[in-house]
């Protein structure tokens, strides 16, 4: 087991190096760059001179030829004189020496890690609550629906999950925003339609005054985006759980348990459920990178400016250090999740062993 884990760790490092190189190459190959906006300015009064642009490029580290971008990001540029590239020597230490760089455009010169740390709590609020809600509801619904296959309840759930899977999150988000606004206009109870926290106190029927920045304020703002995200996951996971449970329920050992005189409830929740959970591990564990990554569409629709929104902005702004940091952390979490899934499998399924 230890040997296995060490081997997997080395593999993980190789995978991360390779994937970061590929990602950075894709950035470099994509047309445009961080300085294009300066060059596109046609107003003669505010138009920066070529010298200004070069100075800016030097500041960002974007003055280097493309093939030095990734090495600089990875290992810094303090050592470039040793390979005969004195003109590009700078003060960056590179990711290997824990220098994540500074943002080029999103928040100019702010350390990338600070930006991520700043946005992380809001992201975790959103993603963890929606993930937990989806799991806590999705698993029992799936089991229930499998046990009562082809019942009225099963048809309802199957239809509901079909709708949940088919609704694009941005459309569903806009729909409930519209509904919420309509409620507000009629003077009924409503949830605020956007932002993470309110700027000033507001009145809601039933609850009275909600203090801006309070826990209640946060919950009020979370309800709608969490609903949208949960809807999708819930649909997905309950379907998965249903299928897994149905398969297990038709297995011979379930029949054995019944023939042994085990109570039906115990047959389902001990003998069948334990086995049906095994394939679910993959799904749950791979939700981990998603928790960090946030929700791109949903955050945008609800103006919930957490990490998903930051990432999209970084891509649009060609803010490579920020986007790279984001992708690297996601890759690390993904690799870690794969490993975690493999280890968890050995715990829940005695048939699987790592060596």
């Amino acid at each position: 087991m230890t040997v296995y884990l060490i081997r997997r760790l080395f593999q993980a490092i190789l995978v991360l190096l390779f994937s970061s190189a590929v990602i950075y190459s894709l950035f470099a190959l994509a047309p445009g760059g961080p300085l294009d906006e300066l060059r596109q300015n046609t107003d003669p009064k505010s138009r920066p001179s070529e010298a200004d642009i070069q100075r800016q490029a030097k500041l960002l580290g974007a003055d280097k030829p493309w093939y030095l971008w990734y090495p600089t990001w990875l290992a810094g540029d303090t050592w470039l004189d040793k390979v005969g590239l004195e003109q590009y020597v700078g003060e960056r230490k590179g990711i290997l020496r824990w220098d994540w760089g500074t943002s080029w455009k999103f928040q100019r010169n702010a350390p990338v890690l600070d930006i991520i740390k700043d946005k992380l709590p809001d992201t975790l609020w959103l993603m963890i609550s929606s993930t937990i809600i989806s799991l806590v509801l999705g698993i029992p619904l799936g089991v229930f629906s499998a046990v009562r296959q082809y019942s009225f309840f099963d048809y309802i759930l199957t239809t509901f999950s079909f709708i949940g899977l088919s609704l694009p999150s941005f459309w569903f988000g806009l729909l409930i925003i519209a509904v919420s606004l309509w409620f507000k206009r009629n003077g009924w109870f409503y949830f605020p339609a956007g932002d993470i926290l309110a700027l000033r106190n507001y009145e809601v029927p039933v609850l009275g005054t909600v203090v801006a920045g309070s826990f209640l304020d946060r919950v009020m703002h979370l309800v709608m985006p969490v609903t949208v995200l949960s809807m999708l996951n819930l649909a997905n996971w309950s379907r998965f759980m249903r299928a897994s449970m149905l398969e297990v329920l038709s297995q011979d050992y379930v029949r054995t348990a019944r023939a042994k005189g085990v109570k039906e409830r115990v047959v389902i929740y001990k003998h069948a459920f334990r086995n049906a959970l095994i394939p679910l591990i993959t799904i749950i564990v791979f939700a981990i990178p998603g928790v960090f990554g946030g929700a791109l569409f949903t955050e945008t629709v609800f103006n919930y400016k957490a990490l998903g929104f930051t990432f999209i902005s970084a891509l649009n702004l060609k803010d490579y250090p920020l986007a790279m940091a984001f992708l690297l952390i996601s890759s690390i979490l993904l690799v870690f999740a794969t490993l975690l899934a493999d280890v968890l499998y050995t715990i829940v399924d005695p048939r699987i062993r790592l060596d």
Partner: protein
Amino acid sequence: MAQSDVLLKLKGVKTYFFTDEGTVHAVDGLDFQVRRGETLGIVGESGCGKSVTSMSILRLLGKTGKVIEGEIMFDGENLLDLSEEEMRKIRGNRISMIFQQPTTCLNPVFRIGEQIIEALQIHQGLSGEEANKRTIELLTLVGLPDPVRRMRSFPHEISGGQAQRVMIAMALACNPELLIADEPTTALDVTIQAQILDLMRELREKVNTAIILITHDLGVVAEMAENVMVMYAGRAVEYAPVHALFEAPKHPYTQGLIASTPVLGNVRDELETIPGQVPSLLNPPAGCRFASRCAHRMDQCTQEEPPLIKLEGDRLVRCWLY
């Protein structure tokens, strides 16, 4: 024969499955009985209703199947009248069952010991040290080597033969009055088959359990059973003591079955076969169900189904020839 001597008596049992394609008449009017300590063999080809019969007795037919008619009297009680809870107390306790694929019949995520202890716990309230002791006893009884260590094994760590021994130990945990063995040796190697049959015979002497042995293997029946019932398309077609059946099979189907069994040392180019196919149970034909494949077919056969005709020496046969 005293009435109390009869352990299980089926009377006119009909088990139908209601599917999208229509109603499957899986068991269509079955009568037989098993005395205490008797071994009854039920023989027939795939889909003749052997296994459905056993699942009907235990009432484990699933959602689509239902016993729509008849009585299943077990020790004077009609099992079909019992509540689900009363029935559950009989399963694994007074009637237990072993199956065809022993390795898939054990739950892969629980240790072997736990699975046997569960049965002891449900029906006898045993737990802790007591249950452990009894489990080791049972595993020793079924001849599993090193039972103390094996208790802690998972099902994937033992062979098919050993798994069947574990299944038998589990089935015998509560000293059942009736053991239903549904093709207990079909999935095993030939040498292991012999071991398991020996074990079952030995246990029958020790614990005096009545056994219903369901199989398509006439050899197994010849070795184990006292009486044999031959089933065809959901119906019993012949019932006889085992020796009488092999010496002089009466029903043309039984004759065909025996003729199609290879005999060691008797080399022939081709085995006898029964021409044709088993009729669909969705819509069973009128008259004798074997008529379309029968060499002795008469006009009467396709018009009217023969009743079970009583012959000399406790034999029954469903055929117009007699």
